[in-house]
């Protein structure tokens, strides 16, 4: 569906996307994950033919975006971060205009309009003026306009930004239902969203591809150690020693809890499942095992780890090169948004 090879986009001296290569198969839901300014929007704009790449080959649905932009645009539906809507039009006028400009045959416009309106649940506002709609409705009208020509590829830039929690859940459901008929690329800086809706995640930072995999594999691959969380009723030191004696255990860090309980975070090599041994040690010692569960590294941890590592490296590289600029999008500004989501 999409093949990107060595995509670089510069704005003057600023490099927004640096040598990015990836491909997307038909039917996939790909998430672009990265802090603000990482190059997500720029990449999407190149894919939709809005911006030409500085260098690199980009093919969408078998067509090169530079050589046959119109063919690409016929097959792509794009929803930018702020939905591009004419606020003085009524919703049905907006959809009809979008249909005509996207080349939907005149006879099919009505049926397509009705279909997308139902799909995005905006049937009840079709006669309202776009400018009078709430942010959530505008987002859905924008999505309906992007869907009107039944595109093979749907590109959604931060589809849930600025929505309330209920709307976010609805939008996610909608995206999931759309993924049956369309290949979807969406960008977000909200991590659980990528884990929820995508079958593949690309983490982008400062224009570079940092990691790419399924949300589950990403968690596994980047973990290094598996972490077990144990809550034990018993004395802290003896339990710690007993747990540290289990084969494969790397580190045991106790956190005292009220009521004579201690929480242990046990880091161990991921090759073998050692949960049984851990449980036996506790029981053999005569202590009470209240809880034992693996805690996979969350996408947030991975994200922070990757982006901060990358920043540190690029900072070093830049100090070596004595370059005056600071890396773009250096700070991972995620914590707040994650808790919001």
């Amino acid at each position, binding site marked *: 569906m999409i093949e990107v090879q060595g995509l670089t986009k510069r704005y003057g001296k600023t490099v927004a996307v640096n040598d990015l290569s990836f491909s997307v198969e038909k039917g996939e839901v790909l998430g672009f994950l990265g802090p603000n300014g990482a190059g997500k929007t720029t990449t999407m704009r190149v894919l939709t033919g*809005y911006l030409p790449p500085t260098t690199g080959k980009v093919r969408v649905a078998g067509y090169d975006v530079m050589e046959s932009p119109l063919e690409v645009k016929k097959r792509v539906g794009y929803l930018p971060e*702020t939905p*591009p809507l*004419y606020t003085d039009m009524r919703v049905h006028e907006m959809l009809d205009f979008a249909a005509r*400009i*996207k080349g939907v045959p005149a006879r099919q416009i009505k049926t397509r309009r009705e279909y997308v309106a139902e799909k995005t649940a905006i049937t009840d506002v079709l006669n309202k003026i776009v400018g009078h709609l709430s942010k959530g409705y505008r987002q859905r009208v924008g999505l309906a306009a992007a869907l009107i020509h039944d595109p093979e590829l749907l590109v959604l830039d931060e589809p849930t930004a600025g929505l309330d929690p209920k709307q976010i859940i609805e939008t996610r459901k909608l995206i999931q239902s759309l993924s049956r008929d369309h290949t979807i690329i969406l960008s977000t800086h909200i991590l659980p969203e990528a884990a929820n809706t995508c079958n593949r995640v690309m983490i982008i930072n400062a224009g570079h591809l940092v990691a790419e995999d399924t949300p589950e594999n990403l968690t596994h691959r980047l973990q290094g150690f598996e972490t077990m969380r144990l809550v034990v009723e018993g004395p802290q030191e003896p339990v710690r020693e007993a747990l540290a004696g289990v084969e494969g255990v790397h580190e045991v860090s106790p956190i005292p809890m009220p009521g004579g309980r201690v929480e242990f975070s046990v880091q161990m090599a991921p090759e073998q499942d050692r949960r049984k041994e851990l449980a036996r040690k506790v029981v053999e010692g005569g202590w009470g095992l209240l809880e034992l569960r693996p805690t996979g590294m969350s996408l947030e941890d991975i994200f922070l780890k990757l982006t901060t590592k990358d920043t540190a490296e690029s900072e070093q590289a830049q100090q070596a090169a004595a370059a005056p600029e600071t890396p773009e999008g250096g700070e991972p500004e995620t914590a707040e948004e994650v808790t919001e989501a």
Partner: protein
Amino acid sequence: MRNIWTIARKEMNSYFRSPIGYFILAIFAFLFGFIYYRSVADFIFTSLTRAQYAQMYGQSMPPMNVNEMVIRGLLSTTSFFLLFLVPMITMRLFAEEKKTGTIELLMTSPITEMQLVLGKFFGSLLLYSIMLGITVPFMMILFRYGNPDWKPVVAGYLGQLLLGGTFISLGLMFSTFTRNQLIAASLTFTTLLLLWVIGFWSQSSGSAWAQIASYIAILTHIESFTKGVIELKDTLYYLSAIGLGLFLSVRSVESTRWRA
């Protein structure tokens, strides 16, 4: 073709979704109505005094020409109104799309920059034609109660259409330069004013520079049309000016992709 029409229709409709379309038409109708009243009243007054004069001295009354005395003046004044009405028509064409981000919808749709520019041009030209259409009933009254020659009137309207097209294509071009409608309108107005003022200078001097200036000046070329003569030279002047404005607009829209 279909894409151009889609855009043109959208532009045309958008003038009437906001008050701007009605406002422009109302102002024009009022101004035109006023000068129409003045020039017809003058004409009648002149004809009365001449008739009286002729009677007093027992001579026959000299012939009076409606084309020369009324219609020509009306059409030249109309072209003067365009100087400030056209910037109001064209300022929003691209500037507004850029400001609200709807340009992203157009630029990711399967249409070429040329179709986009032409669509917007014809959309504005359509509003302008409606504006000219307002003057038709006034002219019909002249034909009902007088007997003007119709050929110069047709030539005059053709000239107005070409002149309006030229103004619009310039305004369109300035609208692609900025996302601020006020800047687009000011640039258009200043440029049109400048091209108009050059004409005065060319009349006051006979040097070679003045001749060049008179060729550039935008309103000197309308004179032949208002006199009822369709000059090839002047028609070509307007057509090439329209072509240049549209070409530069297409280029400017294309370049926004590269500069973005």
